[in-house]
Structures are given as C-alpha cells and as structure tokens.
C-alpha cells in the first residue's frame, strides 16, 4: 500500500490501469533515491520483543546488513518517503506513523508519503498484531527519523557555518536562530549527495514537551481514497490475462477428499481445472463463471472424524489432559481457602468466534520465470513471502509480497493460505491468478477465536476481602489474566494457549483481537463482581479496596467520576455494570447501562463509558476511533456471535446466521483517554475490546440478579438463566 501525500511524486502502483504497470523494482527505487538521504535501522534491539500471532511464524530473518532495509529517504525535493513492513487494515498507522516522522524530522505531514507492507521495498517486519505498531515499532521508527534529523542538522551547520545548537528546524527548513534570513531546506542539503546512515534504537527522541505534531488529533489520511472507491484491496488488483479461481472445499472441517469428478466443469468454455494434492480449483477469466463451474464438480469426501458439537465441546475442553503452566502464584491456596468464610466458585465458558472481516481473504499471484509477485490481504507480508517461497520451492528473495489496503484483519489475516493457493495456481496455469474467498470459505477456513473454559475458585474473608484466588484458564491463553487485585493466596494456571495444542479443537483456531484477553477479562471481572455482590459492597468500592496497581486505580476512579457513579450493592436493578482490566500495557475501565427484556431475553445496551490510559498517544483522534471500534465489535462476542457446529460441520456460513453487531445495537458511546505524562506508548487497538463482555454481564446481573456464565449472552441463554433462578 502506498499513500502519497498531497505534494508527493505522482504516479506509482496505485495509479496504473494494471496493478503492476508501474510497479517499481528495488533497482528503480535505488535509482530514484540515487542521491538524497537514506536511513536504515538495525532491528536487533526489538526483534525479540515481539510475540508472534502468525499461523506459521517466520523462520528466516534477513540480516539487516546488505538488505534493502531503508526506513526513510529524503529526496532532493525535500520530500520524505517512509517504508514499513507494517500494514494498514483500518487501525490507522497510515496516519500515525507519518505523524511520528513529521514530529521527529520537523517536516510537514504533507511532505511525508508512506509505503507499507511491500517485502521488496520495506524493511523486514514480523507482522502487524498485538497492538505493537506504536508501542514497540514506534520507538524504532521515531529513532530513524531522529537520526535523519541529526544528519540534516550537521549538514545545515556546515552549510550555514554555525553550530548545530544555533539552528532550528521547521517544515523541512533549517534556520539560523540568530539570523532568520539565513536558512536552508532539507532538499538543498541532500542535493547531489548520497548519504546513508544506520541507526540502532537509542537515538535522542523528542520529549513530550517539545511535541508539535505527536498528540494532535489528525483525521485519517486514507479517507479520500476510501470514500471515492480509489483505495485498492487485494481483490481489486488486475493483471492482463489473469484467471479467477474457485477452490473446492470439504463440507466439514477434517473431511478429506475421496474423489472429484471435474469433467462437467471442464466442458464449460474457458474453464481451466487444476487438480493437485490438497488443491482442486476451477479457474476462468470471469470470477462468477469460475464459481458456477465449481458447482459442477462432483466430489466425495471422507467424513470428518470429529464427533464434537457446540454443547459437548466444553466437557471435552474441561477434561482434555494438557500439562498446566503456572502463570503466576503467591502465598498458598489452601491457607487462603481456610481463611475464607464464604466460598464462591464458578466456571465461565466462551464459544468459537469468527474474525469475519468484511474483506474476505484475497490474493493475486503472478508466478513467472522463477519469480513470484503476490498482492495479498495479509497481516504479515513477510510471513506470507516465506510460506509462498517454501511452497513453490523458490528462494525467499524471489518472492515479493505486496500488501494493498487490508479490509480488516483482527488476527485472522495472519493466516495466509489464500496467498499460497493463488501462488500454487499461478504456477500451475502459467497465468496470474486471483483467489478471493467467498464468505462461506472465509468462515470455513477461519482461525476462530478458540472456545475456552475458565474455572475460578475463590472465597471472601471475614472482612469482605478476597481471601484466595485459584484461576485456571483452559485454551484461551493467559493474556490479560493478571489478577489486578491484591489477594494474598493466589494461583493462575494456563492450560494450553490461544492456538493449541494441536488436535484439541475441531477447527483451526488462532489469534482474535487481543487473544484470550476478552475471555479472561469476562471471567475475572464477572467473578469479582459476584464476590462484591455476595459481600454486599458496591462493585467499584469493592474493587478499589483491593486493586494493587496505581494506574488501574486511577483509571477506575476516573470512570466512576465521569459517569457520576452513585454507589449501590448489585443487583441494584439499575442495570449498571462496571469492569476493569489491563492489556498490551494499557489500562481500561468501562461502565455500561443495559436493559433486559424478561420475555424475549434480549439485552439492550444503552450507554457505555470507556476510560483508557495508554501512555503517550500519537494520534488521539485515531485512538478514539480504535476504542469505539473495539467496544462496538465487542458487542458481537458479548451478545450474538458464536459458531454452532456438529461433527465438523459449521451452521454459520454467512451473515444471514452469524450475528455481527448492527447499527441498532450500538449504544451511546463515550470514550475518555487519560493523560499519561511522560510515559511511553502502549497498545491501543486491542485493549478496547476486552471488557465489553464483562461490563455487559455485570450490568445484566445488576438489572436482573441473574449471572450469565457463558458468552455470548444470547436471548436463549438469558431466558434459561432467568428460568433457572426462578
């Protein structure tokens, strides 16, 4: 994806009739930047800090030396082009990354263009996930800009014959602070020279007090392209002579192909059939004709070996024998249990949830002459490159993955099967091939958020405090499972992770926006809420008494104050719920008001307040969009989204049965970002989804006295819980 600034050079990959008509190669790029300033960054410092959410983590990391790893270049016209292996899937780095550069470099945003997710032009990146673009990668990115600025200031000092300390820079112009008529532009400084710099991450960054651009709310830079239809996604890419592929899928997860009769499909004019082990596809120059032709393939499958369904899955997960891992522990559970005067144990369940990005997985591959070029909707272009290279038997540098705009990812597009399929089919047919999954394929191939079971044993002591906390999370992973509360005797066990172990789940599972965090926050915050109710103490008061982290306390208090919380013991019949949590280094607290329709079991969320402390915020406008988006998306896993299945067959295969949140379900949303002084940046895109389930469950309890222990809180479950209580 290339987003040119208003003043940037025109033309480029997005403007041609054919996607590759003007696709610059590495050599052309080097020629274009034959003179000017190039800054490279040595990535070693951050490499280990990233947690992989890839379906197949990248094994081969390029050596920084000798690879085309430029982070930014400043051309002779003073125009800045920056390069990143991160991708834009809606979360906003297309704006926030140039914003950081503009700050550290003292250039105008209008002078910064960005190239994202192109493995040929951009530096290696592990993948876009984990809310780490700003918090982890941002440091490197800013350092590159700071280094470039230092070089420019040295050049300016020589050119103007004054010490660096006497210079100021603004909008790409360096001025002598003692004589404002003496100035020189970045473009003039780099003209006719070829300057290269390598930096590590320890450059001098600006302090928050010096910011002019960081921290300013900026509108998205990609809006214009997106409201005019100009923005290209992988499925929009076109090449001369290309074919569209429709791929044969089994009727059930785990079912295997016994035989396929493609003779009827082959009779259709222009159809090309590819039959390879594990890949039967029908291709045509028109996608809809290919899809119709696939319907003519008669195939027989061995049934799925799975005998699980969406009810029996929990017993299966509960008894699966997997070695637990101690996540945290302190004190002694049996001592705490002996001190407890009231016990409260509960089990919390959550079903499989789909990513359901509006854009299905798509890729256009052109394999030719020992090289492959693949436009893919992916969260990890470098991972895709390696998977494609392995599959085709090509050296990694012979594969180029280009990431256009991505139509939503949420973790689901770290799985690159469609790109591999397109590459295989292009190789087999000798023509460019596009694969764009149907919605049904998207559900079928999705790496669902795993179903999980969380068991909590706990008790209250004589003072109404939590005496012990025995927490076991099974198959959601332990992200955001921190206690937050000061409990002397505690233990947190994690059985399996969010993606495994293999064979546990009847489907592929994987990272889903803040993997595990929503499940853990739902269980912990529901349970703490119930303990508060048993103790007869206001839920905010109860939490504040035992919170052990000052940042969390501040966020929770801010939420109570902003809402105008009047204390009350739950159930107060007001329908008010509270929840708090931490994820990706950020702290969040939410308060919600709900109504519950006792006859239909329908929950209406009326109002949500969300307070977040996420450290230094680069673009507050973008951060708020992410928060609203997270809260809204979270309504789905909280209220309506779940996969029903039996023997490997999914009941939900499209949006007629899978319940995404709709306009009419979205409450009034207020978001508050707390100022965090000089603190570094923490994750923003994911923390905003982790509490939606918990805060609604707690509000439902407050409204009805009924505690829901299973997500989603669909009307049938609400009715069943009400009936069980009566």
């Amino acid at each position, binding site marked *: 994806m290339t987003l040119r600034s208003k003043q940037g050079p025109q033309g480029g990959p997005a403007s041609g009739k054919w996607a590759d008509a003007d696709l610059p190669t590495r050599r052309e790029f080097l020629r274009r930047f034959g003179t000017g300033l190039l800054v490279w960054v040595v990535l070693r410092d951050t490499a280990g800090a990233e947690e992989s959410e890839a379906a197949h983590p990248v094994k081969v990391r390029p050596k920084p030396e000798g690879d085309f790893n430029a982070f930014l270049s400043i051309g002779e016209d003073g125009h800045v082009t920056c390069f990143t292996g991160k991708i834009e899937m809606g979360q906003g780095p297309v704006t926030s990354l140039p914003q950081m550069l503009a700050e550290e470099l003292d250039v105008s945003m209008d002078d910064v263009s960005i190239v994202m997710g192109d493995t040929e032009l951009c530096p290696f990146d592990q993948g876009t996930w984990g809310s780490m673009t700003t918090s982890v990668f941002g440091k490197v990115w800013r350092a590159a800009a700071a280094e470039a600025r230092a070089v420019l200031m040295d050049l300016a000092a020589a050119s103007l014959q004054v010490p660096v300390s006497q210079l100021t820079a603004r909008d790409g112009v360096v001025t002598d602070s003692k004589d404002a008529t003496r100035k020189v532009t970045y473009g003039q400084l780099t003209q006719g020279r070829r300057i290269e710099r390598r930096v590590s991450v320890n450059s001098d960054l600006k302090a928050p007090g010096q910011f002019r651009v960081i921290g300013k709310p900026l509108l998205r830079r990609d809006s214009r392209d997106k409201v005019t239809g*100009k923005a290209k996604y992988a499925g929009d890419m076109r090449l001369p002579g290309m074919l569209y592929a429709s791929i044969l899928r089994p009727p059930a997860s785990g079912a295997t192909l016994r035989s396929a009769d493609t003779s009827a499909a082959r009779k259709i004019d222009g159809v090309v059939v590819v039959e390879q082990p594990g890949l039967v596809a029908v291709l045509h120059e028109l*996608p809809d004709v290919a899809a119709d032709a696939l319907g003519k393939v008669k195939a027989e499958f061995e049934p799925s070996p799975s005998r699980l369904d969406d009810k029996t899955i929990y017993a299966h997960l509960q008894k699966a024998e997997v070695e637990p891992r101690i996540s945290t522990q302190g004190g002694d559970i049996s001592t705490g249990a002996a001190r407890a005067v009231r016990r409260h144990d509960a089990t919390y369940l959550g079903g499989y949830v789909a990513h359901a990005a509006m*854009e299905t997985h798509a890729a256009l591959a052109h394999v030719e002459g020992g090289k492959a070029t693949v436009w893919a909707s992916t969260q990890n272009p470098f991972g895709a490159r390696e998977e494609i290279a392995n599959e085709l038997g090509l050296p990694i540098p012979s594969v180029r993955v280009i990431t256009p705009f991505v*139509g*939503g990812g949420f973790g689901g597009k770290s799985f690159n099967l469609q790109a591999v399929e397109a590459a295989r089919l292009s190789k087999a047919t000798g023509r460019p091939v596009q694969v764009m999954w149907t*919605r049904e394929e998207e559900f079928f191939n999705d790496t669902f958020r795993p179903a999980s079971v969380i068991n909590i044993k706990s008790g209250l002591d004589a003072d109404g405090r939590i005496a012990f906390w025995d927490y076991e999370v099974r198959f959601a992973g332990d992200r955001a499972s921190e206690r937050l509360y000061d409990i002397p005797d505690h233990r947190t066990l994690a059985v399996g992770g969010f993606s495994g172990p293999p064979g546990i789940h009847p489907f592929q599972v994987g990272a889903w926006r803040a993997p595990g965090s929503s499940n853990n926050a739902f269980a912990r915050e529901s349970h703490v809420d119930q303990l508060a109710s048993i103790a007869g103490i206001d839920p905010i008061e109860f939490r504040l008494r035992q919170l052990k982290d000052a940042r969390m306390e501040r966020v929770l208090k801010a939420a109570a104050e902003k809402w105008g919380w009047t204390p009350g013991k739950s159930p107060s019949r007001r329908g008010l719920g509270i929840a708090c949590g931490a994820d990706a280094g950020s702290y969040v607290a939410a308060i919600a008001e709900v109504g519950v329709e006792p006859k239909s079991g329908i929950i209406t969320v009326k109002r949500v307040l969300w307070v977040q402390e996420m450290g230094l915020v680069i673009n507050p*406008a973008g951060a708020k969009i992410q928060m609203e988006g997270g809260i809204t*998306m979270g309504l789905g896993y909280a209220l309506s989204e779940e996969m029903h299945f039996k023997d490997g067959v999914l009941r939900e295969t499209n949006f*007629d049965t899978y319940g995404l949140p709709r*306009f009419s379900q979205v409450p009034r949303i207020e978001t508050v970002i707390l100022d965090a002084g000089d603190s570094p940046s923490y994750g923003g895109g994911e923390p905003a989804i982790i509490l939606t389930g918990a805060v609604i469950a707690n509000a439902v309890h407050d409204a009805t006295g009924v505690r829901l222990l299973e997500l989603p809180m669909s009307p049938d479950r609400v009715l069943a819980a009400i009936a069980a209580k009566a």
Partner: protein
Amino acid sequence: MPDTIDFNLNGQPVRVSAEAGRDLLWVLRTDLGLTGPKYGCGISQCGACTVLVDGRAIRSCSVPLKSVKGKSVVTIEGLAAEGRLHPVQEAFIAHDALQCGFCTSGMIMTACDFLRKHPKPTRDQVIAGMDDNLCRCGAHVRIVDAIMEAASAMAGRTPS
C-alpha cells in the same frame, strides 16, 4: 452467445456484451473494471456491493445484469460530480467514519438513497435506514454522525 446490454454507467452510456443473467457485481468489478463496489457476502446481507440504480440503492451481488438495461447505474467511483465530492463523501471524511474502508462504498451509496427519501432524518431514522449494512470495524457511531451532517449540508444547498 453473450447478450448485449445497454445502460448508463456513472454518467456515460455503456454497452456490455455478457450473459444477461450474470450478477451485476461481477460485471462491474471484472468486465467494467469498477472495483469500488465490494463483495462481502454475496447474499444481500452486508450491503458492501451497494450501487445506485436510477437513484435507488441496490445490492449488486443479487441482481442480474439484465435488470439494469436502459437504466442509470452509479457506483462509488461516479458519485463525485465534476471532481467535487458528494456531501456524504465529505461528511465521511470529516467524521473519520471508516477504518478499513471495505464497507464504506456500500455505506455511502446506501446513505445517498436514504437521504433522498429522508432529507431531514432523525438519528433513529438513520440508524433504521442503515441497519442492514454491516461494518466489522465498528465505525457505526461515526457513520451515523456523518449522515446526519450530510443531511444538513444537503438541506442547506438545495432549497426545498
């Protein structure tokens, strides 16, 4: 034998030689090179493929090419008149009413038809009017804000 279908596309007359029963979405995206209308579900459930046919919002994934014969079709690419963005497009930009942008063209086309029928809508009417368009990124609140603003901008421009 392919059929010949004449219609008006984004203000220009076009003649398409294709099977009349093919879904309009794929003819637009493939034969006519207009990739603004998106595929999200293929069964009229998401609205990503919405285009205007004689001013009415139509889900192009679920209507045959022949249904637009002699009619006027507008896609997102043709909405800006003489280089000036439509007020709904302007308002989407001003409100950051999108994230990934994949639902956006369908949202805007649906909103255009909605505002034609409800030039002075209430917020609740906008919500009801947009309820069958899906957005996974959760841009809903801002989309409603944008449509409300577009309504006032349009009311100011065309005296009623």
